[in-house]
Protein backbone atom coordinates (compact mmCIF):
# COMPACT_ATOMS: atom_id res chain seq x y z
CA UNK A 1 0.00 0.00 0.00
CA UNK A 2 2.53 2.52 1.16
CA UNK A 3 4.65 2.06 -1.93
CA UNK A 4 1.79 2.73 -4.34
CA UNK A 5 1.10 5.99 -2.51
CA UNK A 6 4.70 6.96 -2.87
CA UNK A 7 4.59 6.14 -6.58
CA UNK A 8 1.51 8.28 -6.99
CA UNK A 9 3.36 11.30 -5.70
CA UNK A 10 6.45 10.56 -7.81
CA UNK A 11 4.34 10.20 -10.97
CA UNK A 12 2.72 13.52 -10.18
CA UNK A 13 6.10 15.15 -9.66
CA UNK A 14 7.42 13.80 -12.95
CA UNK A 15 4.38 15.17 -14.78
CA UNK A 16 5.01 18.50 -13.12
CA UNK A 17 8.66 18.52 -14.24
CA UNK A 18 7.62 17.65 -17.79
CA UNK A 19 5.09 20.45 -17.98
CA UNK A 20 7.65 22.99 -16.81
CA UNK A 21 9.80 23.58 -19.87
CA UNK A 22 11.33 26.83 -18.60
CA UNK A 23 13.56 25.21 -15.98
CA UNK A 24 15.22 22.93 -18.60
CA UNK A 25 15.11 20.10 -16.06
CA UNK A 26 14.43 16.62 -17.40
CA UNK A 27 13.54 13.54 -15.38
CA UNK A 28 12.39 10.02 -16.23
CA UNK A 29 12.45 6.46 -14.97
CA UNK A 30 16.05 5.25 -15.09
CA UNK A 31 15.34 2.14 -17.07
CA UNK A 32 12.78 3.75 -19.30
CA UNK A 33 10.25 1.45 -17.71
CA UNK A 34 7.72 1.73 -14.97
CA UNK A 35 10.03 1.55 -11.97
CA UNK A 36 9.58 5.00 -10.51
CA UNK A 37 11.86 4.39 -7.54
CA UNK A 38 14.95 4.83 -9.69
CA UNK A 39 15.14 7.96 -11.83
CA UNK A 40 17.56 9.77 -14.04
CA UNK A 41 17.37 13.53 -14.25
CA UNK A 42 19.42 16.23 -15.90
CA UNK A 43 19.80 19.98 -15.72
CA UNK A 44 21.97 22.58 -17.48
CA UNK A 45 25.05 23.95 -15.73
CA UNK A 46 24.27 27.43 -14.40
CA UNK A 47 25.41 30.45 -16.46
CA UNK A 48 28.52 32.43 -15.48
CA UNK A 49 30.13 29.36 -13.93
CA UNK A 50 32.67 26.89 -15.30
CA UNK A 51 29.73 24.49 -15.67
CA UNK A 52 27.88 26.71 -18.16
CA UNK A 53 26.77 24.94 -21.31
CA UNK A 54 27.23 21.50 -19.75
CA UNK A 55 24.48 19.00 -19.06
CA UNK A 56 24.56 17.30 -15.66
CA UNK A 57 22.93 13.93 -15.20
CA UNK A 58 21.83 12.89 -11.72
CA UNK A 59 20.98 9.40 -10.51
CA UNK A 60 18.04 9.40 -8.10
CA UNK A 61 16.99 6.56 -5.81
CA UNK A 62 13.68 7.14 -4.06
CA UNK A 63 13.56 5.42 -0.66
CA UNK A 64 10.45 3.55 0.49
CA UNK A 65 9.83 6.19 3.12
CA UNK A 66 9.72 9.04 0.56
CA UNK A 67 8.71 11.85 1.05
CA UNK A 68 9.53 11.45 4.74
CA UNK A 69 13.10 10.63 3.80
CA UNK A 70 15.05 12.47 1.10
CA UNK A 71 15.72 11.09 -2.38
CA UNK A 72 19.27 9.74 -2.66
CA UNK A 73 21.00 11.71 -5.38
CA UNK A 74 24.41 11.49 -6.94
CA UNK A 75 25.94 12.88 -10.09
CA UNK A 76 26.43 10.48 -12.98
CA UNK A 77 28.26 13.20 -14.89
CA UNK A 78 31.73 13.75 -13.50
CA UNK A 79 32.35 17.28 -12.31
CA UNK A 80 34.98 19.28 -10.48
CA UNK A 81 33.24 20.86 -7.51
CA UNK A 82 34.20 20.95 -3.80
CA UNK A 83 30.84 19.57 -2.61
CA UNK A 84 30.71 16.68 -5.08
CA UNK A 85 33.07 13.71 -5.05
CA UNK A 86 35.14 13.82 -8.24
CA UNK A 87 35.34 10.02 -8.04
CA UNK A 88 31.85 8.81 -7.12
CA UNK A 89 29.57 11.80 -7.75
CA UNK A 90 28.39 11.73 -4.12
CA UNK A 91 26.89 15.04 -3.05
CA UNK A 92 27.24 16.98 0.19
CA UNK A 93 24.14 19.12 0.53
CA UNK A 94 22.12 19.60 3.72
CA UNK A 95 18.73 19.73 1.95
CA UNK A 96 19.41 16.17 0.78
CA UNK A 97 20.15 14.95 4.30
CA UNK A 98 19.50 16.59 7.65
CA UNK A 99 17.58 19.58 6.31
CA UNK A 100 15.18 17.56 4.13
CA UNK A 101 11.49 18.34 4.48
CA UNK A 102 8.60 16.35 2.96
CA UNK A 103 7.26 19.45 1.22
CA UNK A 104 10.41 19.52 -0.91
CA UNK A 105 10.26 17.74 -4.24
CA UNK A 106 12.55 16.05 -6.74
CA UNK A 107 12.41 19.25 -8.77
CA UNK A 108 13.26 21.49 -5.83
CA UNK A 109 16.15 19.17 -4.94
CA UNK A 110 17.47 19.38 -8.52
CA UNK A 111 17.18 23.17 -8.42
CA UNK A 112 19.18 23.11 -5.17
CA UNK A 113 21.87 21.08 -6.92
CA UNK A 114 21.93 23.56 -9.78
CA UNK A 115 22.33 26.36 -7.30
CA UNK A 116 25.06 24.43 -5.47
CA UNK A 117 27.07 24.56 -8.72
CA UNK A 118 26.87 28.38 -8.61
CA UNK A 119 27.81 28.60 -4.94
CA UNK A 120 30.55 26.10 -4.08
CA UNK A 121 31.12 25.81 -0.34
CA UNK A 122 34.75 24.71 0.16
CA UNK A 123 34.43 24.93 3.95
CA UNK A 124 32.10 21.93 3.98
CA UNK A 125 33.71 19.77 1.32
CA UNK A 126 32.83 16.38 -0.09
CA UNK A 127 36.04 16.29 -2.10
CA UNK A 128 38.96 17.66 -0.08
CA UNK A 129 41.30 17.88 -3.05
CA UNK A 130 38.90 20.06 -5.05
CA UNK A 131 38.11 22.19 -2.01
CA UNK A 132 41.74 22.91 -1.21
CA UNK A 133 42.39 23.81 -4.84
CA UNK A 134 39.46 26.26 -4.82
CA UNK A 135 40.82 27.93 -1.69
CA UNK A 136 44.51 27.98 -2.59
CA UNK A 137 44.35 28.48 -6.33
CA UNK A 138 40.94 29.63 -7.57
CA UNK A 139 42.28 30.20 -11.09
CA UNK A 140 43.41 26.60 -11.38
CA UNK A 141 40.09 25.44 -9.91
CA UNK A 142 38.16 27.36 -12.56
CA UNK A 143 40.36 25.92 -15.30
CA UNK A 144 40.02 22.30 -14.19
CA UNK A 145 36.28 22.69 -13.56
CA UNK A 146 35.95 24.02 -17.11
CA UNK A 147 38.07 21.24 -18.61
CA UNK A 148 35.90 18.64 -16.88
CA UNK A 149 32.73 20.38 -18.07
CA UNK A 150 33.97 20.20 -21.67
CA UNK A 151 35.20 16.62 -21.33
CA UNK A 152 32.37 15.06 -19.32
CA UNK A 153 29.32 17.35 -19.55
CA UNK A 154 29.45 18.23 -23.24
CA UNK A 155 30.02 21.91 -22.60
CA UNK A 156 31.12 23.85 -25.69
CA UNK A 157 34.78 24.87 -25.83
CA UNK A 158 33.97 28.59 -25.69
CA UNK A 159 31.14 30.35 -23.95
CA UNK A 160 30.44 33.84 -22.74
CA UNK A 161 31.84 32.65 -19.43
CA UNK A 162 35.30 32.11 -20.88
CA UNK A 163 35.21 35.42 -22.70
CA UNK A 164 34.63 37.08 -19.35
CA UNK A 165 37.63 35.30 -17.87
CA UNK A 166 39.86 36.09 -20.83
CA UNK A 167 38.98 39.77 -20.75
CA UNK A 168 39.12 40.21 -17.03
CA UNK A 169 42.10 42.51 -16.40
CA UNK A 170 43.32 40.53 -13.41
CA UNK A 171 44.00 37.61 -15.74
CA UNK A 172 46.89 39.43 -17.39
CA UNK A 173 48.80 39.70 -14.12
CA UNK A 174 50.56 36.39 -13.68
CA UNK A 175 50.92 36.47 -9.89
CA UNK A 176 47.57 38.02 -9.09
CA UNK A 177 45.78 36.57 -6.08
CA UNK A 178 42.27 37.31 -7.35
CA UNK A 179 41.97 35.61 -10.68
CA UNK A 180 38.26 35.08 -10.71
CA UNK A 181 35.73 36.76 -12.92
CA UNK A 182 33.93 39.87 -11.74
CA UNK A 183 30.61 38.08 -11.72
CA UNK A 184 32.15 35.35 -9.64
CA UNK A 185 33.52 37.94 -7.23
CA UNK A 186 30.17 39.64 -6.92
CA UNK A 187 28.48 36.32 -6.35
CA UNK A 188 30.96 35.22 -3.71
CA UNK A 189 30.51 38.61 -2.10
CA UNK A 190 26.72 38.24 -2.16
CA UNK A 191 27.00 34.73 -0.70
CA UNK A 192 28.88 36.12 2.30
CA UNK A 193 25.78 38.09 3.31
CA UNK A 194 23.78 34.84 3.48
CA UNK A 195 20.51 36.44 2.52
CA UNK A 196 20.79 39.47 4.76
CA UNK A 197 20.44 42.91 3.28
CA UNK A 198 23.83 44.37 2.34
CA UNK A 199 23.21 47.80 3.86
CA UNK A 200 21.93 46.22 7.06
CA UNK A 201 25.15 44.22 7.47
CA UNK A 202 27.38 47.00 6.20
CA UNK A 203 26.27 49.33 9.00
CA UNK A 204 28.20 46.98 11.29
CA UNK A 205 30.99 46.33 8.81
CA UNK A 206 31.55 50.08 8.67
CA UNK A 207 32.25 50.01 12.40
CA UNK A 208 35.29 47.96 11.52
CA UNK A 209 34.04 44.37 11.82
CA UNK A 210 34.65 41.68 9.23
CA UNK A 211 31.59 40.82 7.05
CA UNK A 212 31.71 37.12 7.94
CA UNK A 213 31.79 37.89 11.66
CA UNK A 214 28.88 40.30 11.39
CA UNK A 215 26.83 37.73 9.47
CA UNK A 216 27.78 35.11 12.07
CA UNK A 217 26.63 37.42 14.87
CA UNK A 218 23.34 38.07 13.05
CA UNK A 219 22.76 34.36 12.68
CA UNK A 220 23.70 33.74 16.31
CA UNK A 221 21.21 36.34 17.56
CA UNK A 222 18.71 34.93 15.04
CA UNK A 223 17.99 38.21 13.29
CA UNK A 224 15.19 38.12 10.71
CA UNK A 225 16.50 38.23 7.12
CA UNK A 226 13.39 40.15 6.09
CA UNK A 227 13.72 38.69 2.57
CA UNK A 228 16.95 40.58 2.02
CA UNK A 229 15.28 43.95 2.58
CA UNK A 230 16.83 46.68 4.69
CA UNK A 231 15.04 47.59 7.90
CA UNK A 232 15.50 49.24 11.27
CA UNK A 233 16.76 46.84 13.94
CA UNK A 234 15.32 47.03 17.44
CA UNK A 235 17.71 48.43 19.98
CA UNK A 236 17.78 45.21 22.01
CA UNK A 237 18.90 43.28 18.91
CA UNK A 238 21.54 45.89 18.12
CA UNK A 239 22.86 45.37 21.64
CA UNK A 240 22.92 41.58 21.31
CA UNK A 241 24.77 41.76 17.99
CA UNK A 242 27.34 44.21 19.31
CA UNK A 243 27.83 42.08 22.42
CA UNK A 244 28.45 39.04 20.24
CA UNK A 245 30.88 40.97 18.06
CA UNK A 246 32.83 42.36 21.00
CA UNK A 247 32.58 39.34 23.26
CA UNK A 248 34.14 36.66 21.10
CA UNK A 249 37.32 37.33 19.18
Amino acid at each position, binding site marked *: *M*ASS*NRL*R*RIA*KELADIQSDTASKILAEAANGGSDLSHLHASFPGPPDTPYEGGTYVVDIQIPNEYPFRPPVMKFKTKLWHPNVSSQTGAICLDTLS*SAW*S*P*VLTIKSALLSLQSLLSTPEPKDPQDAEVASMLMKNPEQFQRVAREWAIKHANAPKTTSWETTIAHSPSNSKPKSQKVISREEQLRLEAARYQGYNKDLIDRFVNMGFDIDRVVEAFTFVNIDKNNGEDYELEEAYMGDITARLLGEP
Partner: protein
Amino acid sequence: MKVKIIKWNSVATWRWKIAYDDVCGICQVHFDGTCPTCKYPGDDCSLLSGKCGHNFHMHCIVEWIKQESSKGQCPMCRQKFEWKDNPALAAPTPA
Protein backbone atom coordinates in the same frame (compact mmCIF):
# COMPACT_ATOMS: atom_id res chain seq x y z
CA MET B 1 -53.27 24.33 -7.59
CA LYS B 2 -52.29 21.92 -4.96
CA VAL B 3 -49.07 20.03 -5.29
CA LYS B 4 -48.33 16.92 -3.38
CA ILE B 5 -44.70 16.05 -3.07
CA ILE B 6 -44.32 12.35 -3.15
CA LYS B 7 -40.58 12.11 -2.96
CA TRP B 8 -37.45 14.20 -3.26
CA ASN B 9 -33.72 13.59 -3.49
CA SER B 10 -31.28 16.01 -1.97
CA VAL B 11 -27.70 16.51 -3.08
CA ALA B 12 -25.00 18.41 -1.23
CA THR B 13 -21.34 19.23 -1.72
CA TRP B 14 -18.83 19.99 0.94
CA ARG B 15 -15.32 21.27 1.32
CA TRP B 16 -13.02 22.27 4.15
CA LYS B 17 -13.50 25.82 5.26
CA ILE B 18 -9.83 26.66 4.86
CA ALA B 19 -7.61 26.09 1.87
CA TYR B 20 -9.68 26.83 -1.17
CA ASP B 21 -7.41 25.75 -3.95
CA ASP B 22 -4.46 24.12 -2.31
CA VAL B 23 -2.78 20.78 -1.88
CA CYS B 24 -1.27 19.16 1.18
CA GLY B 25 2.44 19.88 0.86
CA ILE B 26 3.37 16.42 2.07
CA CYS B 27 1.32 14.13 -0.18
CA GLN B 28 0.61 16.78 -2.86
CA VAL B 29 -3.05 15.78 -2.93
CA HIS B 30 -5.81 18.38 -2.71
CA PHE B 31 -7.03 19.09 0.82
CA ASP B 32 -10.53 18.04 -0.17
CA GLY B 33 -9.12 14.68 -1.25
CA THR B 34 -7.67 12.09 1.07
CA CYS B 35 -4.20 11.47 2.34
CA PRO B 36 -2.58 8.47 0.62
CA THR B 37 -3.64 6.01 3.31
CA CYS B 38 -7.34 6.88 3.38
CA LYS B 39 -10.15 5.94 1.08
CA TYR B 40 -12.84 8.48 1.96
CA PRO B 41 -12.30 12.20 2.41
CA GLY B 42 -13.95 14.22 5.15
CA ASP B 43 -14.10 13.43 8.81
CA ASP B 44 -12.17 10.20 8.36
CA CYS B 45 -9.23 12.09 6.92
CA SER B 46 -9.27 15.50 8.50
CA LEU B 47 -6.87 18.40 8.28
CA LEU B 48 -4.61 19.78 10.93
CA SER B 49 -3.62 23.44 11.14
CA GLY B 50 -0.41 24.52 12.79
CA LYS B 51 -0.15 27.64 14.89
CA CYS B 52 2.33 28.75 12.25
CA GLY B 53 -0.55 28.87 9.75
CA HIS B 54 0.37 25.81 7.68
CA ASN B 55 -2.16 23.07 7.01
CA PHE B 56 -1.74 19.39 6.21
CA HIS B 57 -3.75 16.21 6.11
CA MET B 58 -3.63 15.10 9.72
CA HIS B 59 -2.29 11.64 8.81
CA CYS B 60 0.49 13.19 6.70
CA ILE B 61 1.75 15.62 9.34
CA VAL B 62 1.51 13.03 12.11
CA GLU B 63 3.62 10.64 10.02
CA TRP B 64 6.22 13.39 9.55
CA ILE B 65 6.30 14.38 13.23
CA LYS B 66 6.88 10.71 14.10
CA GLN B 67 10.12 10.80 12.11
CA GLU B 68 13.12 11.61 14.23
CA SER B 69 14.52 13.76 11.44
CA SER B 70 11.51 16.09 11.65
CA LYS B 71 12.70 17.46 15.01
CA GLY B 72 9.03 18.26 15.58
CA GLN B 73 9.19 21.05 13.03
CA CYS B 74 6.66 22.24 10.49
CA PRO B 75 7.80 21.03 7.04
CA MET B 76 7.02 24.44 5.57
CA CYS B 77 8.63 26.93 7.95
CA ARG B 78 10.63 24.70 10.34
CA GLN B 79 9.03 26.30 13.38
CA LYS B 80 7.94 23.92 16.10
CA PHE B 81 4.73 22.38 14.84
CA GLU B 82 1.93 22.95 17.31
CA TRP B 83 -1.56 22.23 16.12
CA LYS B 84 -4.29 24.65 16.90
CA ASP B 85 -7.93 23.94 17.66
CA ASN B 86 -9.82 25.02 14.63
CA PRO B 87 -13.60 25.01 15.05
CA ALA B 88 -14.01 25.02 11.28
CA LEU B 89 -12.22 21.70 11.12
CA ALA B 90 -13.66 19.99 14.18
CA ALA B 91 -15.80 17.00 13.47
CA PRO B 92 -19.47 17.83 13.92
CA THR B 93 -20.75 16.46 17.18
CA PRO B 94 -23.24 13.67 16.65
CA ALA B 95 -26.77 14.79 17.41
